């Protein structure tokens, strides 16, 4: 059975914005869309390691702040002409509280 760890509330993230969760050895970016959907992906663009949590969020995508690669938050896949993908992490939202899978938090550190 999956252990879930609470990382904070939906309210703590601005709409069309993101915040980071620090885990041993790296960061997970947690996004909130205009429609209050929550997604978690690796906070590192495969192109030049740009911090994706700092990008502009539009629809269900984010644009990397360094060189404008665009990623689908749900699949982690790059959109448009670029090719690449970032890791996605399962998220559970209950009553406005956000949970990450505990084992995944640990694995993300690899």
């Amino acid at each position, binding site marked *: 059975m999956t252990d879930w760890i609470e990382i904070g509330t939906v309210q*703590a993230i*601005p709409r069309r914005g993101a*915040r980071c*969760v*620090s885990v041993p050895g790296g960061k997970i970016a947690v996004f909130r869309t205009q429609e209050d959907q929550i997604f978690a992906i690796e906070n590192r663009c495969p192109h030049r390691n740009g*911090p994706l949590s700092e990008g*502009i969020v*539009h*629809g269900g995508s984010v644009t990397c702040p360094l060189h404008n690669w665009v990623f689908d938050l749900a699949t982690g896949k790059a959109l448009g002409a670029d090719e690449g993908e970032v890791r996605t992490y399962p998220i559970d939202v209950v009553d406005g509280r956000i949970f990450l899978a505990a084992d995944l938090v640990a694995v993300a550190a690899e």
Partner: protein
Amino acid sequence: MKEKLVIIGNGMAPGRALEKLFETGPSRYSVTIFNAEPRVNYDRIMLSPVLSGEKSFEDIIIHGDGWYIEHGIMLYKGHRIVEIDREKRMVRSEQGATAEYDKLIIATGSVPFIIPVPGHKLPGVLSYRDLDDVHAMMLAAKGRGHAVVIGGGLLGLEAAAGLLNQGMSVTVLHVNPTLMERQLDPAAGYLLQRELERRGIEVITKANTKEIIGGSRVEAVLLDDGRRISADLVVMAVGIRPNAALGKEAGLAVNRGIVVNDQMQTSDPAIYALGECAEVGGTCYGLVAPLYSQANIVAAHLSGDSKAAFVPQYTATRLKVTGIDLYSVGDFAEGEDREEIVLRDATAGVYKRVILRDDRIIGAVLYGDTADGPWFFDMLKNGTDTRPMRDTLIFGQAYQGGTPLDPMAAVAALPDEAEICGCNGVCKGKITDAITGKGLTTLDGVRAHTKASASCGSCTGLVEQLLRATLGDGYNPAAVQPMCPCTDYGHDDVRRLIVAKSLKSIPAVMQELEWKTSCGCAKCRPALNYYLVADWPGEYEDDGQSRFINERVHANIQKDGTYSVVPRMWGGMTNPKELRAIADVADKFAIPAVKVTGGQRIDLLGVKKEDLPAVWADLNAAGMVSGAAYAKGLRTVKTCVGSDWCRFGTQDSTGLGIRIEKFMWGAWTPAKLKLAVSGCPRNCAEATCKDIGVICVDSGYDIHFAGAAGLDIKGTELLCHADTEDEALEIIVALTQLYREQGRYLERIYKWAKRVGTPSILANVVTDREKRRHYYERFVYSQTFAQVDPWEERVNGKDAHEFAAMAEFGLPVAAE
């Protein structure tokens, strides 16, 4: 370990070779380029439109600085290589920079041929080869006067037409009886001469230059027959020769050019030669199409394809003078085994001649109507038997098959293999596939995906016809470039509608203007946010989530995810207290780098994001505010010490600079805005390359604007003179407000000025006092909401979520 690839020269051929190389094996080589010219790779074929004023340098850049950064290329600008050490496999530049290579490409191009007549070194005698030559010609043309162009070939005639456009009177001297004899037969040469003369260019053929006369600079050209033609400028465009000197000194086999095999390798297999400096199969090529083929061969060979080999090829020539249509290809000399078909229409100024041997086309010369050029060229390359269409051949493709067709049908009828873009070797099928496959609807789209029409541009018409033929009514050439794929409106329309419909939020704009996406994209959102900030001061609430990270957190993101912090130093002035505070902050937060910027500020680099509020708090405590070094807004006002200290200073330039900066800080603008005030025309604050610059003079203040010193280098234009400091400030502020209201997002002031034209700017902020006052007052009103230090706000808790992690998990406690 990557292999080291060094390239000498940064012209079009090596640029293309690198593009191809990165396509096939992006990470095999680490690349170093030495460019004797102090700039990036640009489209040399398009120098003539730059000279004639139809294009600007930025229009013809092929690879901007970003491209080199993106591909990790080390580019030495302005470094001429003086030595190739083949033993150590190393090159050395004039300045002493060295680089080792595993593979070396020599692409030094050609040098203009200068006729060694007496006086050829006089000031005012130029060649026509690179951007520096074009700038020198444009500068000379400012004095109007008379130009003499020696050489009536392709380059000489383009120079002549350009100089005429720049307002000079022009004489062309040509040694042969008819112009462009290498590309044109005498009849077409004559038509061309008549057209040039009609435009006001004097053409003297059979003209042998004997001497160039002058004292401190050129005064006249003397011909063999005793004629003397006075000249303020002489342009020598009699030909080029391969620049093979480096190869020769390095001991490589050199004939006319550096001798290479059909894989472009020199006598040293580690060294390639490419472009105009290379001699392949006994020929040195000068037109872009074969040079691009050479580039492809080099790239293929470097990525391990040993089979690729250069095949000699015909090339077609066009003259790039607006309004003159001229096309020639192949061999058009007369001969016993040849037939020719000629069509002349004197009234329409049309001349067509097709040369046949064994019923196959071997050459064509077209003047006045060149639409069928590629069709003839295609048949020439394919060796098409022309007998079935002999009677109508000369009328062109539209007349084949009995019924006259419209040009659209002619394009539609071209086979998929027909070459459309000669420069880049793009055939029709590739273009139509890209249009349908990638859903392209614009010329720019086709250029981006296929490179067709992206070099000399002479096939633009054909590409547009292909777009129309493929898309039907879906193609609208007059369409405005949309802001981004989320809308069909261009920037200007969106802005106009924001005001006209009183749209005061991003969702309102997207709703009313029928945005195609739910909440825009990273391109349109920052633009809309700026437009709303600028158009509805006090009413629109700034949307941080629609700003780029730098403007959202008021610091500049660096490549490693840390930030740089630049406090404001009004007019570049500081004091011991501020300097101590900066030093203390650097120590306290272990900031790894402290640098003085070009805008007279101090930059603290490598600050961790979570430290930003604390760093700002300490700087605030010493009285410093954000320097806005990240903003599309007012950045810096540079000053010199002016009449306070300098023995040449005419006015208090420092005081005026500080006054302007205190008045204008906090203002958002379409793109960054940098100012400077110099206390005298010696211009120590370098005001004449700024967005807005002031040069103080005894009688007051000269206000300049629209300079650039980044990717482009452009001196400012003089806007007007102000008698008093108050007047100067009012004009500068009004000018800024006009730019705020008209500029497109990310459009620097010089590009805006070029687009709207200086007269309209003068009318709004100089000649009409009342209008100026209105712009000034709108700016002042807007500033009442803008002048809030963003650092202080955040020190006091605003946007705290930006600077702290949402949750932190340490290493799990080991259970095993």
